[in-house]
Protein backbone atom coordinates (compact mmCIF):
# COMPACT_ATOMS: atom_id res chain seq x y z
CA UNK A 1 0.00 0.00 0.00
CA UNK A 2 2.65 2.46 1.13
CA UNK A 3 5.05 1.24 -1.53
CA UNK A 4 2.42 1.72 -4.23
CA UNK A 5 1.76 5.29 -3.12
CA UNK A 6 5.48 6.04 -3.11
CA UNK A 7 5.94 4.56 -6.58
CA UNK A 8 3.01 6.59 -7.88
CA UNK A 9 4.29 9.74 -6.18
CA UNK A 10 7.78 9.30 -7.63
CA UNK A 11 6.39 8.50 -11.06
CA UNK A 12 4.12 11.55 -10.94
CA UNK A 13 6.97 13.80 -9.80
CA UNK A 14 9.20 12.48 -12.60
CA UNK A 15 6.49 13.00 -15.21
CA UNK A 16 5.82 16.52 -13.96
CA UNK A 17 9.54 17.35 -14.00
CA UNK A 18 9.94 15.95 -17.52
CA UNK A 19 6.92 17.87 -18.75
CA UNK A 20 8.19 21.08 -17.13
CA UNK A 21 11.60 20.58 -18.72
CA UNK A 22 10.15 19.86 -22.15
CA UNK A 23 7.86 22.86 -21.97
CA UNK A 24 10.49 25.31 -20.74
CA UNK A 25 11.34 27.63 -23.62
CA UNK A 26 15.12 27.81 -24.05
CA UNK A 27 15.07 31.61 -24.14
CA UNK A 28 12.48 34.31 -23.52
CA UNK A 29 10.04 34.30 -26.48
CA UNK A 30 10.28 38.13 -26.60
CA UNK A 31 13.98 37.79 -27.35
CA UNK A 32 13.23 35.33 -30.19
CA UNK A 33 10.64 37.79 -31.53
CA UNK A 34 13.23 40.61 -31.58
CA UNK A 35 15.81 38.38 -33.29
CA UNK A 36 13.27 37.35 -35.93
CA UNK A 37 12.29 40.97 -36.58
CA UNK A 38 15.96 41.87 -37.13
CA UNK A 39 16.67 38.82 -39.32
CA UNK A 40 14.13 39.76 -41.99
CA UNK A 41 15.02 43.43 -42.61
CA UNK A 42 13.68 43.54 -46.18
CA UNK A 43 10.17 42.38 -45.20
CA UNK A 44 7.64 44.97 -46.38
CA UNK A 45 5.08 46.43 -43.97
CA UNK A 46 2.29 44.09 -45.09
CA UNK A 47 4.54 41.10 -44.33
CA UNK A 48 5.25 42.13 -40.73
CA UNK A 49 2.29 40.13 -39.33
CA UNK A 50 3.97 36.94 -40.64
CA UNK A 51 6.82 37.49 -38.19
CA UNK A 52 4.52 37.61 -35.18
CA UNK A 53 2.85 34.38 -34.00
CA UNK A 54 -0.76 34.58 -32.84
CA UNK A 55 -1.81 33.24 -29.41
CA UNK A 56 -2.36 29.70 -30.69
CA UNK A 57 1.06 29.57 -32.37
CA UNK A 58 2.70 31.00 -29.24
CA UNK A 59 1.12 28.39 -27.02
CA UNK A 60 2.08 25.58 -29.39
CA UNK A 61 5.68 26.83 -29.72
CA UNK A 62 6.06 27.14 -25.95
CA UNK A 63 4.66 23.64 -25.33
CA UNK A 64 6.58 22.27 -28.32
CA UNK A 65 3.28 21.16 -29.83
CA UNK A 66 2.53 19.05 -26.80
CA UNK A 67 -0.04 21.14 -24.88
CA UNK A 68 -1.57 20.05 -21.60
CA UNK A 69 -5.11 18.72 -21.88
CA UNK A 70 -6.50 21.96 -20.48
CA UNK A 71 -4.49 24.11 -22.89
CA UNK A 72 -5.45 21.89 -25.83
CA UNK A 73 -9.10 22.48 -24.89
CA UNK A 74 -8.56 26.25 -24.84
CA UNK A 75 -6.81 26.23 -28.22
CA UNK A 76 -9.52 24.12 -29.85
CA UNK A 77 -12.28 26.30 -28.43
CA UNK A 78 -10.56 29.49 -29.62
CA UNK A 79 -9.96 28.10 -33.09
CA UNK A 80 -13.48 26.73 -33.41
CA UNK A 81 -14.58 30.34 -32.97
CA UNK A 82 -12.47 31.37 -35.96
CA UNK A 83 -14.29 29.16 -38.47
CA UNK A 84 -16.48 30.87 -41.07
CA UNK A 85 -19.07 28.68 -42.74
CA UNK A 86 -20.41 28.80 -46.30
CA UNK A 87 -23.44 31.13 -46.41
CA UNK A 88 -25.66 28.53 -48.13
CA UNK A 89 -24.72 25.71 -45.72
CA UNK A 90 -23.32 23.59 -48.58
CA UNK A 91 -19.85 22.19 -47.78
CA UNK A 92 -19.19 20.29 -51.00
CA UNK A 93 -17.63 21.90 -54.06
CA UNK A 94 -15.99 20.34 -57.12
CA UNK A 95 -13.59 17.45 -56.42
CA UNK A 96 -11.76 18.02 -59.72
CA UNK A 97 -10.85 21.53 -58.64
CA UNK A 98 -9.97 20.07 -55.25
CA UNK A 99 -7.54 17.60 -56.84
CA UNK A 100 -5.78 20.49 -58.66
CA UNK A 101 -5.55 22.40 -55.37
CA UNK A 102 -4.18 19.32 -53.61
CA UNK A 103 -1.40 19.12 -56.22
CA UNK A 104 -0.44 22.80 -56.12
CA UNK A 105 2.07 24.22 -53.67
CA UNK A 106 1.85 27.65 -55.22
CA UNK A 107 1.32 30.79 -53.22
CA UNK A 108 2.50 33.15 -50.49
CA UNK A 109 6.26 32.59 -50.98
CA UNK A 110 8.22 35.78 -51.63
CA UNK A 111 8.77 34.59 -55.20
CA UNK A 112 4.99 34.25 -55.74
CA UNK A 113 4.30 37.99 -56.09
CA UNK A 114 2.50 39.34 -58.01
CA UNK A 115 0.40 36.15 -57.92
CA UNK A 116 0.34 34.22 -61.19
CA UNK A 117 -2.42 31.88 -60.07
CA UNK A 118 -4.49 31.02 -56.97
CA UNK A 119 -2.91 29.62 -53.81
CA UNK A 120 -2.72 25.83 -53.61
CA UNK A 121 -3.43 23.55 -50.67
CA UNK A 122 -0.40 21.33 -51.38
CA UNK A 123 -2.13 18.40 -49.65
CA UNK A 124 0.03 15.80 -51.42
CA UNK A 125 3.13 17.31 -49.83
CA UNK A 126 2.06 15.60 -46.59
CA UNK A 127 -0.83 13.22 -47.34
CA UNK A 128 -1.58 10.24 -49.52
CA UNK A 129 -4.94 10.90 -51.18
CA UNK A 130 -5.42 8.87 -54.34
CA UNK A 131 -4.00 5.64 -55.73
CA UNK A 132 -2.90 7.40 -58.91
CA UNK A 133 -0.58 9.88 -57.19
CA UNK A 134 2.41 8.01 -55.76
CA UNK A 135 4.43 11.14 -55.07
CA UNK A 136 2.98 11.99 -51.69
CA UNK A 137 4.44 12.91 -48.31
CA UNK A 138 3.97 11.21 -44.97
CA UNK A 139 3.94 14.05 -42.43
CA UNK A 140 0.15 13.73 -42.24
CA UNK A 141 -1.92 10.53 -42.20
CA UNK A 142 -3.03 8.80 -45.41
CA UNK A 143 -6.43 10.10 -46.53
CA UNK A 144 -7.02 7.35 -49.09
CA UNK A 145 -10.68 6.27 -48.94
CA UNK A 146 -11.47 9.12 -46.51
CA UNK A 147 -15.14 9.55 -47.39
CA UNK A 148 -15.84 5.89 -48.00
CA UNK A 149 -14.46 4.96 -44.58
CA UNK A 150 -16.89 7.49 -43.08
CA UNK A 151 -19.79 6.23 -45.22
CA UNK A 152 -20.07 9.75 -46.73
CA UNK A 153 -21.98 10.94 -43.64
CA UNK A 154 -23.14 14.57 -43.58
CA UNK A 155 -21.59 15.14 -40.13
CA UNK A 156 -18.20 14.07 -41.52
CA UNK A 157 -18.58 16.39 -44.51
CA UNK A 158 -18.95 19.30 -42.07
CA UNK A 159 -16.10 18.00 -39.89
CA UNK A 160 -13.80 17.77 -42.94
CA UNK A 161 -14.62 21.40 -43.78
CA UNK A 162 -13.79 22.44 -40.23
CA UNK A 163 -10.50 20.50 -40.17
CA UNK A 164 -9.28 22.11 -43.39
CA UNK A 165 -10.51 25.56 -42.38
CA UNK A 166 -8.79 25.30 -39.00
CA UNK A 167 -7.01 22.06 -38.16
CA UNK A 168 -6.45 23.23 -34.61
CA UNK A 169 -10.16 23.46 -33.96
CA UNK A 170 -10.04 19.64 -33.98
CA UNK A 171 -6.42 18.90 -33.01
CA UNK A 172 -4.61 21.52 -30.91
CA UNK A 173 -1.08 22.22 -32.21
CA UNK A 174 -1.60 20.11 -35.33
CA UNK A 175 1.23 20.47 -37.86
CA UNK A 176 -1.31 21.27 -40.57
CA UNK A 177 -1.78 24.88 -41.67
CA UNK A 178 -5.08 26.54 -40.73
CA UNK A 179 -6.02 27.20 -44.34
CA UNK A 180 -9.20 29.20 -43.71
CA UNK A 181 -8.28 31.03 -40.52
CA UNK A 182 -4.93 32.14 -41.98
CA UNK A 183 -6.58 33.16 -45.30
CA UNK A 184 -4.48 30.77 -47.37
CA UNK A 185 -7.54 29.31 -49.12
CA UNK A 186 -11.01 30.75 -49.73
CA UNK A 187 -14.25 29.16 -48.53
CA UNK A 188 -14.94 28.00 -52.12
CA UNK A 189 -11.51 26.36 -52.37
CA UNK A 190 -11.99 24.59 -49.05
CA UNK A 191 -15.34 23.27 -50.33
CA UNK A 192 -13.53 21.86 -53.38
CA UNK A 193 -11.10 20.05 -51.06
CA UNK A 194 -14.01 18.73 -48.97
CA UNK A 195 -15.46 17.30 -52.20
CA UNK A 196 -12.14 15.66 -53.00
CA UNK A 197 -12.26 13.90 -49.63
CA UNK A 198 -15.99 13.22 -49.26
CA UNK A 199 -17.51 12.87 -52.74
CA UNK A 200 -18.30 9.26 -53.75
CA UNK A 201 -17.08 10.16 -57.29
CA UNK A 202 -13.70 11.42 -56.07
CA UNK A 203 -10.58 9.31 -56.84
CA UNK A 204 -9.90 9.45 -53.09
CA UNK A 205 -12.81 7.03 -52.63
CA UNK A 206 -12.22 4.80 -55.66
Amino acid at each position, binding site marked *: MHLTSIVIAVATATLTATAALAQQPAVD*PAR*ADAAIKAAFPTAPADWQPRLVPDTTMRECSAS*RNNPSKALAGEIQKRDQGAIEYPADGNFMGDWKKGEALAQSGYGLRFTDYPPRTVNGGNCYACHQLTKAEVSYGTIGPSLLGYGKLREFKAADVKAAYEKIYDSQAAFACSNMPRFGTNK*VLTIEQIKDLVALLMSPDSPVNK
Partner: protein
Amino acid sequence: MGGQFTEEASVKGVLKIFAIGGVTLALSAAVLAQSDEETEKAVEKYRQMLKQDPWSNPGLLDVDRGEELWKTPRGPNKVSLEKCDLGLGAGKIEGAYAQLPRYFADADRVMDAETRIMWCMEKLQGFNHADLIKRPYPGGGQPVKELGAIATFVANKSNGQRFAAKTDHAKEKDAIALGETLFYRRSGPFDFACVTCHGTEGQRIRLQGLPHLAAPKEAAKVVGEWPAYRVSSTHVMTLQHRLYDCYWQMRMPELEMGSEVSVALTAFLVNQAKGGEINAPGLKR
Protein backbone atom coordinates in the same frame (compact mmCIF):
# COMPACT_ATOMS: atom_id res chain seq x y z
CA MET B 1 50.90 18.43 -61.30
CA GLY B 2 48.26 19.15 -58.71
CA GLY B 3 46.40 21.41 -61.14
CA GLN B 4 46.46 18.82 -63.89
CA PHE B 5 45.14 16.17 -61.55
CA THR B 6 42.26 18.40 -60.54
CA GLU B 7 41.38 19.15 -64.15
CA GLU B 8 41.32 15.48 -65.16
CA ALA B 9 39.23 14.69 -62.12
CA SER B 10 36.82 17.47 -63.03
CA VAL B 11 36.29 16.15 -66.58
CA LYS B 12 35.70 12.70 -65.17
CA GLY B 13 33.26 14.23 -62.72
CA VAL B 14 31.26 15.97 -65.44
CA LEU B 15 30.94 12.72 -67.40
CA LYS B 16 29.67 11.00 -64.28
CA ILE B 17 27.07 13.72 -63.81
CA PHE B 18 25.62 13.09 -67.27
CA ALA B 19 25.45 9.39 -66.49
CA ILE B 20 23.66 10.11 -63.22
CA GLY B 21 21.22 12.44 -65.01
CA GLY B 22 20.20 9.57 -67.30
CA VAL B 23 19.67 7.29 -64.33
CA THR B 24 17.50 9.97 -62.69
CA LEU B 25 15.15 10.11 -65.68
CA ALA B 26 14.90 6.34 -65.82
CA LEU B 27 14.23 6.23 -62.08
CA SER B 28 11.56 8.94 -62.26
CA ALA B 29 9.62 6.89 -64.81
CA ALA B 30 10.05 3.72 -62.80
CA VAL B 31 9.00 5.50 -59.63
CA LEU B 32 5.52 6.19 -61.00
CA ALA B 33 4.64 2.52 -61.06
CA GLN B 34 5.89 1.67 -57.60
CA SER B 35 4.50 1.49 -54.10
CA ASP B 36 5.81 3.98 -51.57
CA GLU B 37 8.20 1.50 -49.98
CA GLU B 38 9.71 0.63 -53.34
CA THR B 39 9.83 4.32 -54.21
CA GLU B 40 11.81 5.14 -51.09
CA LYS B 41 14.20 2.29 -51.92
CA ALA B 42 14.70 3.60 -55.46
CA VAL B 43 15.45 7.09 -54.18
CA GLU B 44 17.92 5.68 -51.68
CA LYS B 45 19.62 3.64 -54.41
CA TYR B 46 19.97 6.82 -56.44
CA ARG B 47 21.61 8.52 -53.44
CA GLN B 48 24.02 5.63 -53.02
CA MET B 49 24.97 5.79 -56.71
CA LEU B 50 25.73 9.48 -56.29
CA LYS B 51 27.93 8.70 -53.32
CA GLN B 52 29.82 5.74 -54.76
CA ASP B 53 32.42 7.77 -56.62
CA PRO B 54 33.46 10.87 -54.68
CA TRP B 55 34.85 12.42 -57.88
CA SER B 56 31.38 12.47 -59.38
CA ASN B 57 30.56 15.34 -56.99
CA PRO B 58 30.52 18.61 -58.98
CA GLY B 59 30.71 20.54 -55.69
CA LEU B 60 34.44 19.79 -55.67
CA LEU B 61 34.85 22.33 -58.47
CA ASP B 62 33.67 24.97 -56.02
CA VAL B 63 36.13 23.74 -53.39
CA ASP B 64 38.91 24.49 -55.90
CA ARG B 65 37.29 27.79 -56.80
CA GLY B 66 36.99 28.70 -53.11
CA GLU B 67 40.66 27.92 -52.50
CA GLU B 68 41.64 30.16 -55.39
CA LEU B 69 39.40 32.95 -54.07
CA TRP B 70 40.88 32.57 -50.56
CA LYS B 71 44.44 32.97 -51.85
CA THR B 72 43.86 35.72 -54.42
CA PRO B 73 44.27 39.40 -53.48
CA ARG B 74 40.77 40.84 -53.91
CA GLY B 75 38.45 43.68 -52.93
CA PRO B 76 39.21 47.40 -52.59
CA ASN B 77 42.18 46.57 -50.33
CA LYS B 78 43.62 44.02 -52.81
CA VAL B 79 44.57 41.48 -50.16
CA SER B 80 43.89 37.77 -49.89
CA LEU B 81 42.01 36.11 -47.02
CA GLU B 82 45.16 34.38 -45.84
CA LYS B 83 45.17 36.52 -42.67
CA CYS B 84 41.52 35.72 -41.90
CA ASP B 85 41.16 34.14 -38.45
CA LEU B 86 38.51 31.41 -38.53
CA GLY B 87 39.03 30.74 -34.84
CA LEU B 88 42.28 28.79 -34.81
CA GLY B 89 44.54 31.73 -35.69
CA ALA B 90 45.16 33.85 -38.77
CA GLY B 91 45.14 31.82 -41.95
CA LYS B 92 44.64 28.46 -40.21
CA ILE B 93 41.96 26.61 -42.14
CA GLU B 94 42.51 22.91 -41.42
CA GLY B 95 40.00 21.85 -38.75
CA ALA B 96 38.57 25.36 -38.25
CA TYR B 97 35.12 24.43 -39.59
CA ALA B 98 34.78 21.63 -37.02
CA GLN B 99 34.88 24.26 -34.24
CA LEU B 100 32.40 26.70 -35.75
CA PRO B 101 30.14 28.48 -34.91
CA ARG B 102 32.16 30.12 -32.14
CA TYR B 103 32.50 33.39 -30.28
CA PHE B 104 34.91 35.90 -31.83
CA ALA B 105 36.11 38.61 -29.46
CA ASP B 106 37.02 41.01 -32.29
CA ALA B 107 33.43 41.01 -33.54
CA ASP B 108 31.94 40.38 -30.07
CA ARG B 109 29.50 37.85 -31.43
CA VAL B 110 29.08 34.20 -32.35
CA MET B 111 29.73 33.48 -36.03
CA ASP B 112 29.37 30.49 -38.29
CA ALA B 113 31.78 29.89 -41.20
CA GLU B 114 29.91 32.02 -43.73
CA THR B 115 29.36 34.93 -41.36
CA ARG B 116 33.04 34.86 -40.37
CA ILE B 117 34.22 34.74 -43.99
CA MET B 118 31.92 37.68 -44.74
CA TRP B 119 33.42 39.54 -41.76
CA CYS B 120 36.95 38.91 -43.12
CA MET B 121 35.90 40.01 -46.60
CA GLU B 122 34.70 43.29 -45.10
CA LYS B 123 37.47 43.94 -42.57
CA LEU B 124 40.47 42.65 -44.54
CA GLN B 125 39.48 43.05 -48.16
CA GLY B 126 37.24 46.08 -47.76
CA PHE B 127 34.11 44.63 -49.36
CA ASN B 128 30.86 46.44 -48.56
CA HIS B 129 28.51 44.65 -46.15
CA ALA B 130 25.34 45.78 -47.92
CA ASP B 131 26.67 44.43 -51.25
CA LEU B 132 27.56 41.06 -49.71
CA ILE B 133 24.13 40.46 -48.20
CA LYS B 134 22.12 41.85 -51.13
CA ARG B 135 21.90 38.77 -53.37
CA PRO B 136 23.97 36.23 -51.49
CA TYR B 137 22.69 33.01 -53.07
CA PRO B 138 22.58 31.70 -56.65
CA GLY B 139 19.41 31.02 -58.63
CA GLY B 140 18.85 27.53 -60.03
CA GLY B 141 21.57 26.60 -62.52
CA GLN B 142 23.89 29.41 -61.35
CA PRO B 143 27.07 28.50 -59.46
CA VAL B 144 27.38 29.22 -55.75
CA LYS B 145 28.50 32.82 -55.11
CA GLU B 146 32.10 33.60 -54.19
CA LEU B 147 31.50 33.68 -50.45
CA GLY B 148 29.73 30.34 -50.66
CA ALA B 149 32.57 28.80 -52.66
CA ILE B 150 35.04 29.97 -50.00
CA ALA B 151 32.80 28.45 -47.30
CA THR B 152 32.71 25.18 -49.26
CA PHE B 153 36.52 25.18 -49.40
CA VAL B 154 36.77 25.92 -45.66
CA ALA B 155 34.28 23.16 -44.76
CA ASN B 156 36.09 20.70 -47.03
CA LYS B 157 39.32 21.36 -45.09
CA SER B 158 37.71 19.80 -42.01
CA ASN B 159 36.62 16.63 -43.80
CA GLY B 160 37.05 13.53 -41.66
CA GLN B 161 36.91 15.61 -38.48
CA ARG B 162 34.00 15.57 -36.09
CA PHE B 163 31.85 18.55 -35.05
CA ALA B 164 33.31 19.82 -31.78
CA ALA B 165 32.17 23.42 -31.43
CA LYS B 166 33.05 24.87 -28.03
CA THR B 167 30.19 25.94 -25.85
CA ASP B 168 32.14 27.55 -22.99
CA HIS B 169 31.41 31.20 -23.74
CA ALA B 170 28.11 32.58 -22.49
CA LYS B 171 27.32 33.87 -25.99
CA GLU B 172 27.96 30.43 -27.47
CA LYS B 173 25.54 28.87 -24.98
CA ASP B 174 23.07 31.63 -25.70
CA ALA B 175 23.25 31.12 -29.49
CA ILE B 176 22.44 27.42 -29.11
CA ALA B 177 19.54 28.19 -26.75
CA LEU B 178 18.15 30.83 -29.12
CA GLY B 179 18.53 28.43 -32.04
CA GLU B 180 16.61 25.77 -30.14
CA THR B 181 13.78 28.19 -29.35
CA LEU B 182 13.65 29.27 -33.01
CA PHE B 183 13.56 25.62 -34.12
CA TYR B 184 10.21 25.27 -32.31
CA ARG B 185 8.88 28.78 -33.05
CA ARG B 186 5.80 28.73 -35.27
CA SER B 187 5.13 31.74 -37.46
CA GLY B 188 3.74 32.85 -40.81
CA PRO B 189 0.53 32.00 -42.71
CA PHE B 190 1.25 28.24 -42.63
CA ASP B 191 1.99 28.14 -38.86
CA PHE B 192 5.27 26.39 -39.65
CA ALA B 193 8.33 25.93 -37.47
CA CYS B 194 11.47 23.95 -38.33
CA VAL B 195 10.10 21.14 -36.17
CA THR B 196 7.00 20.84 -38.39
CA CYS B 197 9.09 18.96 -40.97
CA HIS B 198 12.12 17.93 -38.92
CA GLY B 199 10.63 16.59 -35.70
CA THR B 200 9.87 12.94 -36.52
CA GLU B 201 11.97 10.16 -37.98
CA GLY B 202 11.33 8.70 -41.43
CA GLN B 203 8.93 11.31 -42.80
CA ARG B 204 8.99 12.90 -46.22
CA ILE B 205 7.51 15.77 -48.24
CA ARG B 206 6.28 14.27 -51.50
CA LEU B 207 9.17 11.82 -52.10
CA GLN B 208 11.84 13.90 -50.39
CA GLY B 209 13.05 12.36 -47.12
CA LEU B 210 13.31 14.75 -44.18
CA PRO B 211 16.04 14.51 -41.56
CA HIS B 212 14.80 14.37 -37.96
CA LEU B 213 16.97 17.24 -36.76
CA ALA B 214 15.48 17.30 -33.27
CA ALA B 215 17.27 13.95 -32.75
CA PRO B 216 21.06 14.26 -32.29
CA LYS B 217 21.68 10.86 -33.88
CA GLU B 218 20.10 11.90 -37.17
CA ALA B 219 21.50 15.45 -37.07
CA ALA B 220 25.00 13.95 -36.71
CA LYS B 221 24.45 12.05 -39.95
CA VAL B 222 23.38 15.00 -42.13
CA VAL B 223 24.63 18.38 -40.84
CA GLY B 224 28.25 17.58 -41.85
CA GLU B 225 27.14 17.15 -45.48
CA TRP B 226 26.64 20.93 -45.84
CA PRO B 227 27.57 22.85 -47.94
CA ALA B 228 26.16 20.33 -50.40
CA TYR B 229 25.80 19.97 -54.16
CA ARG B 230 22.12 19.76 -55.09
CA VAL B 231 21.44 17.83 -58.26
CA SER B 232 17.97 19.42 -58.66
CA SER B 233 19.31 22.99 -58.73
CA THR B 234 22.78 22.07 -60.09
CA HIS B 235 24.75 24.13 -57.62
CA VAL B 236 26.34 24.06 -54.22
CA MET B 237 24.01 25.22 -51.49
CA THR B 238 25.50 26.46 -48.23
CA LEU B 239 23.91 26.03 -44.82
CA GLN B 240 22.90 29.72 -44.69
CA HIS B 241 21.28 29.29 -48.12
CA ARG B 242 19.53 26.10 -46.92
CA LEU B 243 18.00 28.00 -43.98
CA TYR B 244 16.97 30.89 -46.26
CA ASP B 245 15.26 28.37 -48.53
CA CYS B 246 13.47 26.70 -45.61
CA TYR B 247 12.05 30.07 -44.52
CA TRP B 248 11.00 30.72 -48.13
CA GLN B 249 8.99 27.50 -48.10
CA MET B 250 7.63 28.47 -44.68
CA ARG B 251 6.20 31.57 -46.39
CA MET B 252 8.44 33.84 -44.38
CA PRO B 253 10.37 36.80 -45.85
CA GLU B 254 14.02 36.71 -46.90
CA LEU B 255 16.32 35.58 -44.09
CA GLU B 256 19.40 37.82 -43.93
CA MET B 257 22.72 36.05 -44.37
CA GLY B 258 24.73 36.25 -41.16
CA SER B 259 21.73 37.35 -39.08
CA GLU B 260 21.54 36.37 -35.41
CA VAL B 261 18.73 33.96 -36.35
CA SER B 262 20.66 32.13 -39.07
CA VAL B 263 23.76 31.87 -36.89
CA ALA B 264 21.75 30.69 -33.86
CA LEU B 265 19.95 28.01 -35.89
CA THR B 266 23.33 26.86 -37.26
CA ALA B 267 24.75 26.80 -33.72
CA PHE B 268 21.79 24.69 -32.58
CA LEU B 269 22.05 22.27 -35.53
CA VAL B 270 25.82 21.86 -35.17
CA ASN B 271 25.37 21.29 -31.44
CA GLN B 272 22.73 18.65 -32.19
CA ALA B 273 25.23 17.10 -34.63
CA LYS B 274 28.11 17.11 -32.11
CA GLY B 275 30.45 14.21 -32.86
CA GLY B 276 29.09 13.86 -36.40
CA GLU B 277 31.66 13.62 -39.15
CA ILE B 278 32.20 16.43 -41.64
CA ASN B 279 32.07 15.32 -45.27
CA ALA B 280 31.59 18.44 -47.36
CA PRO B 281 30.43 19.14 -49.97
CA GLY B 282 27.78 16.45 -49.64
CA LEU B 283 25.46 15.40 -52.46
CA LYS B 284 21.74 16.06 -52.29
CA ARG B 285 18.86 15.25 -54.56
